[in-house]
């Protein structure tokens, strides 16, 4: 049974991190260069950690399966990044950001971790501005903010609809600087396929060069995984096609516990599915909910009418109706389920009936009027106001409206967008303590790959915050504390027997895939898995459905290994082989997610069990039985994994029913 000690420092909540930093062990500068740290992944968390650790003087080797670190999927985050700067003077504070994040996570995250996240949020903005990240600014030259779901203050910093891109390019520039100076050795096109554990301690990884097919062994004093989330288990999601669970799944199979895998975030505002050939769902940033109003027709018979033909009094602005104090800015899980309820009632729109409207007509009118007033236009015509309003909306959200138009061939300036929830983020991940270290000593996990800060639901604009907090401001301290306890120069060589055995294991695994020579392409199985997961472990889950999935997924796994066809060899670029390995892991992870969802007999955040709801359809938590993180421990192939528990103690906040009404 795994030892799960959260290692939260004692003392008052607001002092814990400061106290921790003053008490940890340090590594002296001459010794830092004797330690080697492997970082896997180069998104926000991986790039920022690599750059910062190299600046401190550690030898860093960074591995990324993309052809460049700048391709990591953090690049696609649109809306923004939260920070408790209170530049708007609207009452924000570190405590409020902490409280909103904890409540937003439906009281299923650790207080101490979340408070630290809120504390360092302010440093992130300073750091990024100093790197030259061109955040949006006001006319006076100061930084601009906007609002995001689950908050009543404007604390979100943004760079048009491309905030993730700009933050990643900032971290990438820091990483590039250190690569150029020789502080980081960068391995691109390099996919981690196994974790090497020696005497219970993480000491290296096995890597496949995706271009040459070469499989190599790499040893280190510590290994950091910053490999992102596993939402592609659903096949269709807003993730990049290459995003995968392989690194964390293979670490799990080497003993790292996987916590709360069933916590998945379904984002309310995505472009609806249009056909079975589809490979990808596209997000429409949550920032649109600042100005867009979400509605469906009140009457079922209106659903097929053009939206312009539906009178104002026949429209149901259901978020504003049900959640008057947060309205269209209700948190993601709440907004997604509400959309599902409307569609389940038969009031969904679009060809499939799985869609709701996100309408900008009112915002266009309001902005148009504002601009007209500012410019002292006398009696402007309706058309003029519309024109001015469209220009104002274009300035705020132009790139999102363009994306919507490319995909749907419809103009959201002229008619409301159609949106529907889609898989967007996974709150679950490898279990880590306050140091961001897993239960396998020496294995650190950052960003979306860990389970730490978002509980059962993540608020908008908090993923970028967490990735950069972990990489720039947390792990550089905590890893030093760990390395200070290891004698420099004791790192094993990559010729140790454990390395050779792990390499052979990976060679055998890949050969098994290449030699299956069945009849179906990899995508066939990925689609089937995605459908099972969406139907039984998606927005609403039931005991019956999950039990069914737990029968179907193992069957799919068998079918996969018997009938997959992976052409080509392992000695060159082979994209089918890459996908096959990832889908094999997704199938196993999907099973664990269903098991986790089945055993968590409550509803919380993104995990909604139909059996556990309040009469109004909201999540009904069971704090007596489930105020804990479930950390699953691998017990061997074909064996039921062990469910370990880390109790969550709320010392400083009161767990309450989460209400946004």
């Amino acid at each position, binding site marked *: 049974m795994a030892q799960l000690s959260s290692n939260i420092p004692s003392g008052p909540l607001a002092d814990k991190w400061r106290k921790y930093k003053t008490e940890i062990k340090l590594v002296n500068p001459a010794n830092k260069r004797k330690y080697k740290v492997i970082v896997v992944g180069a998104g926000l968390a991986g790039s920022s950690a690599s750059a910062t650790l190299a600046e401190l003087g550690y030898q860093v080797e960074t591995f990324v399966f993309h052809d460049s670190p700048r391709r990591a999927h953090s690049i696609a985050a649109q809306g923004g990044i939260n920070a408790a700067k209170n530049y708007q003077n609207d009452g924000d504070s570190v405590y409020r950001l902490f409280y909103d994040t904890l409540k937003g996570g439906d009281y299923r995250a650790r207080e101490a971790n979340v408070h630290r996240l809120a504390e360092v949020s302010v440093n992130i903005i300073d750091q990024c501005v100093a*790197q030259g990240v*061109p955040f949006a600014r006001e006319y006076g030259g100061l930084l601009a903010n906007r609002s995001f779901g689950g908050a009543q203050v404007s604390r979100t910093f943004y760079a048009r609809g491309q905030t993730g891109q700009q933050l990643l390019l900032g971290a990438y520039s820091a990483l590039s600087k250190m690569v150029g100076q020789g502080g980081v050795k960068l391995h691109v096109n390099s996919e981690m396929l196994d974790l090497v554990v020696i005497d219970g301690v993480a000491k290296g990884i096995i890597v496949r060069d995706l271009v040459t097919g070469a499989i190599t062994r790499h040893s280190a004093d510590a290994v950091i995984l910053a490999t992102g989330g596993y939402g592609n288990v659903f096949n269709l999601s807003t993730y990049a096609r290459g995003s995968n669970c392989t690194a964390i799944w293979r670490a799990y199979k080497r003993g790292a516990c996987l916590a709360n895998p069933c916590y998945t975030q379904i984002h309310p505002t995505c472009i609806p599915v249009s056909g079975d050939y589809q490979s990808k769902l596209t997000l429409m940033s949550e920032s649109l909910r600042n100005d867009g109003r979400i509605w469906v027709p009140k009457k079922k018979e209106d659903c097929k009418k053009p939206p312009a033909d539906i009178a104002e009094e026949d429209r149901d602005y259901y978020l504003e109706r049900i959640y008057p104090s947060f309205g269209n800015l209700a948190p993601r899980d709440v907004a997604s389920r509400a959309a599902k309820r409307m569609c389940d009632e038969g009031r969904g729109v679009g060809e499939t009936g799985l869609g709701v409207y996100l309408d900008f007509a009112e915002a266009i009118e309001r902005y148009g009027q504002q601009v007209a007033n500012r410019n002292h236009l006398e009696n402007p015509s309706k058309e003029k106001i519309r024109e001015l309003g469209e220009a104002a909306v274009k300035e705020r959200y132009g790139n999102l409206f363009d994306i919507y138009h490319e*995909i749907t*061939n*419809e*103009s959201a300036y002229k008619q409301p967008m159609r949106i529907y929830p889609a898989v967007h983020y996974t709150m679950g991940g490898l279990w880590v303590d306050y140091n961001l270290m897993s239960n396998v000593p020496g294995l650190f996990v950052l960003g979306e790959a860990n389970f730490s800060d978002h509980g059962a639901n993540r608020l908008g604009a908090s993923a970028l915050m967490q990735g950069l907090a972990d990489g720039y401001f947390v792990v550089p301290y905590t890893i030093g504390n760990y390395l200070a306890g290891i004698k420099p120069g004791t790192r094993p060589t990559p010729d140790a027997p454990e390395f050779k055995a792990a390499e052979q294991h990976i060679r055998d695994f890949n050969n098994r895939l290449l030699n299956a020579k069945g009849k179906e*392409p990899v995508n066939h199985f990925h689609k089937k898995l995605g459908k099972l997961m969406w139907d039984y472990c998606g927005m609403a889950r039931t005991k019956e459905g999950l039990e069914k999935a737990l029968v179907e997924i193992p069957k799919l796994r068998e079918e996969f290994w018997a009938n997959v066809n992976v052409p080509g060899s392992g000695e060159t670029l082979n994209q089918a082989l890459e996908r096959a390995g990832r889908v094999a892991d997704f199938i196993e992870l999907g099973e664990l997610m269903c098991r986790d969802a089945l055993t968590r007999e409550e509803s919380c955040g993104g995990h909604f069990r139909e059996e556990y709801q309040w009469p109004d359809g909201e999540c009904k938590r069971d704090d007596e039985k489930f105020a804990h993180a479930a950390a699953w421990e691998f017990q061997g192939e074909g064996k039921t994994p062990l469910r370990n528990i880390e109790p969550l103690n709320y010392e400083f906040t009161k767990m309450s029913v989460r209400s946004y009404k």
Partner: protein
Amino acid sequence: MVAEKSSAKNISVTLRVWRQAGPAQPGKFVDYPAKDLNPNMSFLEMLDVINDGLEQKGEEPISFAHDCREGICGTCSLVINGKPHGPNKSIASCQTYMRSFSDGEVIVVEPFRAAPFPIVKDLVTDRSAFDKIQQAGGFISIRTGAACDANATPIPKEVADLAMDAAQCIGCGACVAACKNSSAMLFVSAKVSQLGLLPQGQPERDSRVLNMVATMDSLGFGNCTNQYECSAACPKAVSHDFIARMNRDYITASFRSAFRPKSAAAGDGA
């Protein structure tokens, strides 16, 4: 526009795809029929369908680079009918939809072609040269934790907006593929301009442009002869005005570095 979408009929096309087993092997065009395609299918989804069919038959799928499929990661890199990123302006290959093609069309698909981007396999090229240019100076040297308050230096909105226009570059390399000289000047000038416009970027402004341009030249990229094919092909419509800005910066920096008195302390590795 809605009517056009719902009434649109499925189409069939022939794909003429560049297949090349490896960097040293010769390549050739191979035709693949693609039948009964929904016009709302993306170009890459169409390639997925073709690849699924090939894999089912045990044939190697067409290798192509792709990831986010929403036009921001810069991975996709197809030349479609002779144009980097295909027929439509200001989008990446992944944002090209089959509605841009007509029934019965023969569509030629090639990799980005430029000497500094050697072909890896089929439609995949090696664009690591871009990373090398970044490593030579595409950054502001700020150590983590050393920053002052973010609002300490106000930056005029127009300046921040212009820096953002430059910063939008996704690093795909279409500018190089579109240029008869295989010039990377749009890519390099975008980063030089973004950082050179901002107050934070001033201390390294000269060394940045000199080092990035020197690295660009050493990697075999050509020079700009003002045809502007780069910005026409750019999925983010990054303006060639930034090339002019970089040229000004480069000349100024060259003069300054030639005539600047050197400090006795400089270069002692402190």
